């Protein structure tokens, strides 16, 4: 073994990589970018949980003439927590706000709650949750339990600890929904996007590097036909893939789903069109297959982090929410969750579908423009 030969090889590799500015950028910048995003997300406290409190209880009158109410105390205690915002509502208001997403949970204190609490009875507490996100459910439960425990020392030490009875209801989904249930729809969207993007990128790059694109363009075929052909070919694979993943998650993993699978397929199809064309477009900026793969940290990873796969988009800080709103997966995820978990219909996801359609059309234009017959 001769070290000089080893060094010669190492030196050659270093000068090759150094000449490839993009790879250098990727090696240095991409990890910082991804770690930065990841750190930002993981450090986030579960902020932005909004709880509505509906006090149907009037409280009790003390002998001093003052009126105390457990609802007021609870609201005060919950309000002290930074991650929560508390809002007094009525039962009907609360459920309405839950449905449109401006509240995450509603706590209803039934008539006679304070009385029961003071006298060591069994106070009934009704908790209504949005239900499609198990993470949120846990956060609400933790905050509420802590607040209730804190409020207890206020009652006479002699009195037996009252047993607060939780009665939990869900608008969508339910207790049996676990993390897998809530993630399955978004994972399906993600898989489709990821694989279709990568497959198209690589095979389009091959088309150019093996010279077949040149030959293709020497036939009467139009660039619209090329793009459409690619969409059809990979679209078929994408739909087969989503069908397999969907059936696997429903029948093998036994996830819960409530929605119209046809509508879920429509979402996937639109996403596929966008992914195929994004792959074609970006492959023009790659010279090797390795460079196509290098797009993953730029195109795929941020979408994984921000589009609602890991954390709900509205729990992200403002800046990241703006970034998320530019990503197609954000809309696909929202639509998939709406369809599969909330069981909503076409009218309810029309906005998301429109955005996905817009993205698909924009990508289509970019990709068609990138296939030029007269490419010098």
């Amino acid at each position, binding site marked *: 073994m001769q070290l000089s030969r080893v060094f010669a090889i190492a030196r050659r590799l270093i000068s090759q990589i150094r000449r490839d500015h993009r790879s250098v950028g990727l090696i240095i910048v991409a990890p910082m970018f991804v770690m930065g995003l990841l750190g930002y997300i993981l450090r986030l406290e579960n902020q932005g949980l909004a709880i509505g409190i509906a006090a149907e209880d009037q409280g009790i009158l003390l002998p001093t003439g003052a009126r105390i109410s457990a609802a007021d105390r609870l609201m005060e205690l919950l309000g002290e927590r930074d991650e929560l915002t508390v809002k007094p509502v009525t039962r009907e208001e609360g459920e309405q706000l839950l449905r449109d997403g401006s509240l995450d949970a509603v706590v209803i204190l039934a008539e006679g709650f304070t009385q029961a609490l003071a006298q060591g009875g069994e106070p009934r507490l009704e908790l209504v949750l949005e239900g499609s996100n198990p993470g949120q459910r846990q956060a609400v439960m933790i905050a509420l339990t802590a607040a209730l425990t804190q409020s207890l020392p206020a009652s006479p030490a002699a009195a037996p600890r009252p047993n607060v009875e939780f009665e939990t209801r869900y608008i969508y989904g339910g207790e049996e929904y676990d993390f897998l249930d809530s993630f399955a729809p978004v994972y399906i969207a993600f898989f489709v996007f990821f694989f279709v993007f990568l497959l198209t990128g690589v095979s389009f790059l091959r088309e150019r590097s*093996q*010279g*077949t694109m*040149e*030959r*293709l*363009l*020497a*036939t*009467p*075929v*139009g660039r619209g036909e090329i793009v459409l052909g690619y969409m059809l070919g990979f679209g078929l694979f994408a739909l087969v893939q989503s069908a397999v993943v969907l059936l696997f998650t429903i029948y093998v993993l036994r996830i819960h789903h409530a929605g119209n699978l046809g509508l879920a397929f429509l979402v996937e199809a639109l996403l596929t069109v966008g992914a195929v064309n994004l792959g074609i477009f970006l492959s023009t900026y790659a010279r090797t297959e390795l460079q196509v793969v290098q797009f993953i940290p730029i195109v795929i990873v941020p979408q994984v982090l921000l589009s609602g796969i890991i954390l709900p988009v509205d729990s992200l800080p403002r800046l990241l929410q703006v970034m998320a709103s530019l990503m197609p997966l954000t809309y696909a995820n929202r639509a998939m969750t709406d369809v599969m978990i909330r069981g909503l219909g076409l009218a309810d996801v029309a906005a998301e579908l429109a955005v996905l359609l817009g993205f698909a059309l924009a990508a289509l234009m970019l990709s068609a423009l990138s296939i030029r*017959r*007269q490419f*010098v």
Partner: protein
Amino acid sequence: MDFSIETVRLNKAFGAIRAVAELDLQVQAGEIYGLLGPNGSGKTTLMRLLVGLAKADSGEARVLGRRMPDRGLLAEIGYMTQAEALYSDLTARENVLFFAALSGVRTASWIGEALELVELQARANDLVSSLSGGLRRRVSLACALVHRPRLLILDEPTVGVDPQLRVAFWEHFRRLAEAGVTLVISSHVMDEAGRCDRLGFMREGRLIAEGSPDELRQRSGMTDLEQAFLKFAEADHAA
């Protein structure tokens, strides 16, 4: 006169390099026209201009009576690139079938005939990746002529093809020309250049001499075309 190809002061530059410069070329229908010249003399660029894969900076290229680029005309043109340009994960037949479909071939028997022409029937169902370089050239040629074009533009079609098949190729080119097909063929190999009706010697993007092989030999006073080319190149360099 009716030309299959007629270029008028055609120009194409890549940065400071003039790949095709003020080029006037005329090729008649049914003629085999050979383009000869060293690497980088502009043969491939000229061919790409004729097919419409590149856009001229100035000047005009009229092909089969229409000004290029013209996508509609491409069904009448067969182009074989210097690179193999095949899908290596498909079989020979699938490759021919694919390019036939793109060029609008509706007769299924044409695919078999194209494969037969290049003597590939036996290997038609083999993956291109399992074929040798010479066999791939044959598949590539079959792809270029499967749609029976009126004009064939072949960029070094016989590279890596063994001598026996090369003779067969040229016999076939001649038969096509007799049937009225126009062929433009670039080559390095001077002995096959002798089989062309007319030759154009290219240097630095220009045609420095043109004529039948015999004419070129006579004018240069040389007995073989390679010497003739060098003589013309020298004279051009001096000028």
